[in-house]
């Protein structure tokens, strides 16, 4: 069985995924992990919990953020439910004693913050998002999906299963202080006078390996190099919330959040098609 062939593979798997019932991370929650439950939980959290925690799960004056880049002590639905209802000993977290359904709604929302994007994919027009990715958004110039696209940026074939929706959104809207490892912009001038720009994949005192803007791989030993100039910022644009309309941005997120290699059997498609 062959799978994961070019773009249509992604599209078909997306369609199949949409038809699936609530996903494993909400399995303990009697209310499930549907969009409505999450929205209700979100509203309840902002209404009941922001005395200590920040609005929308941000850090608060007395309580921590609900989703951040760290290990969570309470991973499961049940653990979160118990923390809400019974409080956390030796901390400022009090027992809330909410109606059980409300507590489960809040659990569903917190888990959605921490879930990978494919678990809680963004709403929107997926086909339109794909069109923006390969067209107006120019994402495909630097990013590859299932073998199609440019090579300067990370492979996004499995993006939805690797990153949360929040992080995907941040990557498109918040500038990072430093380019990530393996994607540092670099321009090399050789002793022969050639100039090649791209991103450095690896470098040390005696050699440098890079992907050029032409998507070719270049290997240099230090004695071949006359000059190296580094770019200070990542090549990843962070103005997508401005360069795209609100609906276009939403559609792009809907497309990106569904890029996943999970459920391999479900994604068998015809070869060599593009969305």
């Amino acid at each position, binding site marked *: 069985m*062959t799978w994961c062939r070019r773009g249509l593979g992604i599209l078909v798997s997306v369609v199949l995924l949409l038809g699936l019932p609530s996903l494993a991370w909400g399995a303990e929650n009697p209310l499930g992990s549907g969009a409505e439950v999450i929205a209700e939980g979100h509203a309840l959290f902002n209404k009941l919990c922001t005395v200590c925690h920040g609005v929308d799960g941000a850090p608060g004056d007395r309580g921590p953020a609900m989703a951040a880049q760290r290990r969570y002590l309470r991973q499961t639905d049940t653990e979160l439910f118990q923390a809400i209802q019974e409080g956390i000993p030796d901390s400022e977290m009090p027992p809330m004693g909410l109606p059980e359904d409300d507590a489960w709604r809040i659990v569903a929302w917190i888990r959605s913050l921490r879930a990978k994007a494919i678990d809680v994919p963004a709403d929107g027009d997926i086909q339109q998002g794909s069109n923006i990715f390969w067209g107006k958004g120019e994402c495909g110039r630097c990013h590859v999906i*299932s073998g199609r696209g440019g090579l300067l940026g990370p492979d996004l074939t499995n993006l939805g299963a690797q990153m949360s929706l929040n992080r995907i959104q941040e990557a498109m809207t918040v500038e990072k202080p430093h380019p990530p490892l393996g994607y540092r912009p670099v321009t090399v001038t*050789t002793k022969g006078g050639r100039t090649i720009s791209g991103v450095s994949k*690896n470098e040390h005192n005696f050699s440098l390996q890079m992907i050029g803007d032409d998507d070719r791989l270049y*290997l240099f030993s230090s004695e071949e190099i006359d000059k190296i100039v580094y770019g200070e910022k990542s090549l990843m644009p962070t103005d997508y919330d401005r360069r795209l309309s609100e609906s276009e941005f939403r559609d792009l997120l809907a497309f990106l959040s569904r890029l996943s290699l999970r459920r391999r059997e479900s994604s068998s498609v015809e070869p060599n098609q593009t969305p």
Partner: protein
Amino acid sequence: MIAEMSNRAASIGRVLRCAVVAGLLAGGLSAGEVTYEQLLDPPPENWLTYGRTYDSQRHSPLDQITKENVSQLAPAWIFPMPGARRLESVPIVVDGVMYVSQPNEIYALDARAGRQIWKWRREPARQRGNNRGVAVLGNLVYVSTPDAHLVALDARTGSMVWESEIASSEDGYWSPAAPFAIDGRIIAGNAAGDYGLNGWLDAFDATTGERLWRFYTIPRPGEPGNETWAGDSWKTGGGATWLSGSFDPELNLLYWGIGNPAPDFDGEPRRGDNLYTESVVALDADSGKLRWYFQFTPHDLHDWDSVEIPILVDAPYKGRLRKLLVHADRNGFYYVLDRETGEFLEGVPFIDKLNWASGLTETGRPIRVPGVEPTLQGNFVCPSTSGATNWMSPAYNPATNWFYLAVKEGCGVSYKSKQEFRPGGFSYAATGYIESPRFPWQMFVRALDLTTGERKWEYRQVNSRHYGAGLVSTATGLIFAGDDQGFFTALDAVTGDPLWHFNTGTRISASPISYAVKGRQYLAVCSGVNVVTFALPAGPEAD
């Protein structure tokens, strides 16, 4: 920013294309695509297939390292593979980029610097068997996996482009062999026959991953050869394809060695010759149809997989130029076949301790010696199940017209019992063997005359009592060999004299290669958990 970058990329791209066209590359390397034409006639500096060339001769035309200067050979770089156990991978080198693998992982390395360019890891990483290398074609790198899939990656980034199932890992299959790239197709095999899982060979479309044909190594009912299996024993007959093969593009034939029948040590349930186990098969590369076969060990009882790499040579035989296929089998015999027809031409033992057959008939069938079959109490047999040679590749030097191989002298005691087949990937060996304490194994490198099998010399690898390593031959009359003591040694191809050695410190179980980057020749071999490379002291590099 992206628009600016794209404009810059476009303008630089134009400049680059001009530079390439004008041949102005000055300094640095740009890794390129691999064409089928290059696979047919590999540039001397590249090592593009498991055996370097389709005939699997493992003979490098590079001539910088000679008998005169080999004593100056020194390590160039060492790359430890994180989490590795015992590497058996044969590295592939394309225009200065080395691709080397272990189960579930591929590393792309700068072949001059030993620095990692990218790494691909399969998740979830199922642990089963070894991995013996990758194939390259176009811009893709191909590897087979412990969960029996064939995966295609972008050679520049390691991004996965497609994957196809070779066999069901739930049934117990895995795929350890290096895939084999021909024109637009990738050939892949599977394991394990020892579990009673029937093997096959698949051809996949190199671009899409679509399966094009399949050859079943155990004939199904109605197919010729099925009658060589008693009753339903063909259903669990084994016949794995766990090593790579060879290819004759003129005849358009693939040559592949087939593994042992199952249950390995109990032949009672599977009376008959058990085709096509312990055979080499010649398959039409377009259709996968069987053109001919030759069975080395009919009704094998000692798990002597005949997967050892066949070498293809066009050479005079009894006064006439013949297209030959030569093969040193794990059963201890060296065979010379006509590769157009499969006709048996010669067969002689290449080991001294061989007690299971008194010779071969005119058609190459072994003349069995009774009393060496596995029994409940154990029977003494030479060679042992580990074989007179194994996965470690032989080499051929056209100048000497000699065949070089790693040889194991040693005997074993084989036992059998009754065992029922259990689906899902469980041993169906019906017991096993031990190495004989009386005749513990001893490794050698031996040179054989191509067409007669006459032994020309041998190099004893003192104290080497484990599977050895493969060989590479060079145009300057050198043979490079590894051993289980960790020594990588250069031998004189004419005399067998050791001319240089280096102690890598860990067992070498893989086959070495030779390549060049910017005019500097390297040797590379996987040793233990490391990729180790050697070169002469650096001089000025050629542009």
